[in-house]
């Protein structure tokens, strides 16, 4: 609620405050180790280094990392299922996956040690938000292949907090649990939390009378304005969390009590900012694409992974005293992928769905809106001779088939709207496929 709020220091946060020279030393030692591991175990990585005349020992300083080749999302897809594994499947204790463009998911693997690293990263995020072993965490992120649920779960348990693995959905039950168990912290998407708040108000329950005081919100873009609204409306502190399954899941970067940028847990995840077009590294303070290298992930190391997320490293030190560098809140992506209700959706999935149903790809546009605090996705499709008929029944049947096919491919509920030919704006060059009216 106020700027003087200062959480007590949590012992788990100690690595956040390493003096910078020590942090760089630690990063370099871990980088050397992970590069050798990836070089020995991942043929694709070894070949790419050899093509450039490099070996792991070519990287003598942290800055040399920019000589290494990038890893792209397509590399994960192309080598599905095991291609980027750096450990035998028997040494892998967990798999997660996120939706991909062609029906094949992006699969990520974790060793026992990787899970410990991830749990520690999440635990440190929670500690940075001022949470501790006394917290009762309602974890409303989805459990399953999505990394959100289990990532926050293990972090909460590491912290020694009480974790309620309620997962997403069933608003009535969420509210009952929140009230009856004295929940002090909630993890979910920011839009879902606003939805919960509105329902609580409908029930004439004063949120300020509940013990809830911390919100851990991520898995979709949101803004400082939305944070202000949430904090004013509910009296809780609303924190941003950043992560992506290719790197680990949630816990790559988190805010602190200052709520001024996200500290990258860079002893585990080394950040760079590059120009997405020239692929050249950019200095701190300059906006570009975030590139991450996992320094302590052995089942599936990611070297210079291009996140497609646009941000900048904040050059100034944070008032909280953490030496971990901060990135600005992620506001957009350098490709067409969009995130809705925590799920990655690609325009190409929608094209595939239309192709399957109609045999053609009509002009279309994706319109993202936020209704009743929940993200909505409408796909406007220009009616084609194949879809159009003089009977409403036949048109409706086509529309519903496309709608179902999109839902099957993306896992997201959509509304397909038919519009007249020419209604979707044509732009020069790359079509403007997505209109985001969510105003985050």
């Amino acid at each position, binding site marked *: 609620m106020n700027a003087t709020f200062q959480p007590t220091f949590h012992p788990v946060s100690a690595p956040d405050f390493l003096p910078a020279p020590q942090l760089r030393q630690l990063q370099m030692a871990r980088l050397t180790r992970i590069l050798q591991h990836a070089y020995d175990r991942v043929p694709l990585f070894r070949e790419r280094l050899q093509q450039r005349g490099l070996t792991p020992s070519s990287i003598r300083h942290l800055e040399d990392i920019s000589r290494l080749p990038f890893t792209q999302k397509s590399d994960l897809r192309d080598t599905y299922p095991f291609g980027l594994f750096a450990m035998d499947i028997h040494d892998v204790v967990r798999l997660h996956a996120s939706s991909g463009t062609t029906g094949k998911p992006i699969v990520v693997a974790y060793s026992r040690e990787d899970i410990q690293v991830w749990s520690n990263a999440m635990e440190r995020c929670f500690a940075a938000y001022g949470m501790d072993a006394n917290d009762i965490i309602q974890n409303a992120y989805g459990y399953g292949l999505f990394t959100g649920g289990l990532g926050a779960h293990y972090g909460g348990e590491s912290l020694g907090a009480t974790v309620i693995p309620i997962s997403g959905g069933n608003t009535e039950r969420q509210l009952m649990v929140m009230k009856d168990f004295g929940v002090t912290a909630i993890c979910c998407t920011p839009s879902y939390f606003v939805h919960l708040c509105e329902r609580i108000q409908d029930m004439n329950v004063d949120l300020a009378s509940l013990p809830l005081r911390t919100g851990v919100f991520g898995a979709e873009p949101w803004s400082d304005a939305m944070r202000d609204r949430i904090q004013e409306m509910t009296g809780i502190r609303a924190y941003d969390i950043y992560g992506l399954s290719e790197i680990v899941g949630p816990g790559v970067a988190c805010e602190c009590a200052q709520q001024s940028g996200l500290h990258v847990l860079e002893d585990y995840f080394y950040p760079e900012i590059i120009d997405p077009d020239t692929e050249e590294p950019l200095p701190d303070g300059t906006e570009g694409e975030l590139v991450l290298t996992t320094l302590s992930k052995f089942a599936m190391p990611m070297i210079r992974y291009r996140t497609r997320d646009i941000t900048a490293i904040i050059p100034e030190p944070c008032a909280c005293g953490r030496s971990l560098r901060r990135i600005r809140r992620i506001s957009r992506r350098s490709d067409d992928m969009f995130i809705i209700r925590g799920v990655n959706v690609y325009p190409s999935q929608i094209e595939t769905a239309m192709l399957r149903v109609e045999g053609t790809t009509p002009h279309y546009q994706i319109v993202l809106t936020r209704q009743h605090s929940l993200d909505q996705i409408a796909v406007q499709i220009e009616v084609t*001779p194949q879809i*159009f008929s*003089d*009977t*409403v029944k036949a048109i409706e049947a086509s529309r519903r088939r496309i709608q179902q096919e999109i839902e099957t491919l993306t896992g997201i509920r959509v509304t397909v*709207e*038919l519009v*007249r*030919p*020419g209604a979707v704006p044509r732009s020069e060059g790359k079509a403007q496929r997505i209109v985001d009216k969510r105003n985050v």
Partner: protein
Amino acid sequence: MKLQQLSLFLENRPGQLSEACRILAENDINMLTLTLADTQQFGVLRVIVSDVQRARQTLEEAGIMVQIAEVIAVEVPNEPGGLARVLDPLEAHDLDIEYMYAFASRHKGRAVLVFRFRDTDAAVQVLKQLQLTVLREHQLTDLV
């Protein structure tokens, strides 16, 4: 026997119907009869016009999605039971009607029923057997 009906796709927002009508008016095309089917999302305007090919061309040039469907127009007495007397035998022959609409003829005491059958050819055979007055295009024009 079969008449050509234009079907137009309309978005469900203001100005869509008037635009189509204006285009037809500007091209001096008369609408003999029409019906509008609508859903929450879109509408389908079905219309029988004086010059179907020219109407189609001008509408398409204006970017409107148009299709031609075959319908059958039957003239009946404009009196109680006029429609029922046609429907009963059609049902007896298992002819599926997708939709229909009707209008009063300029000829006193007569009404015109426009049918869109699932199987138009089969419907024509049955209607002939029933000795109903199936209108040709020029006859329809005369009635309006």
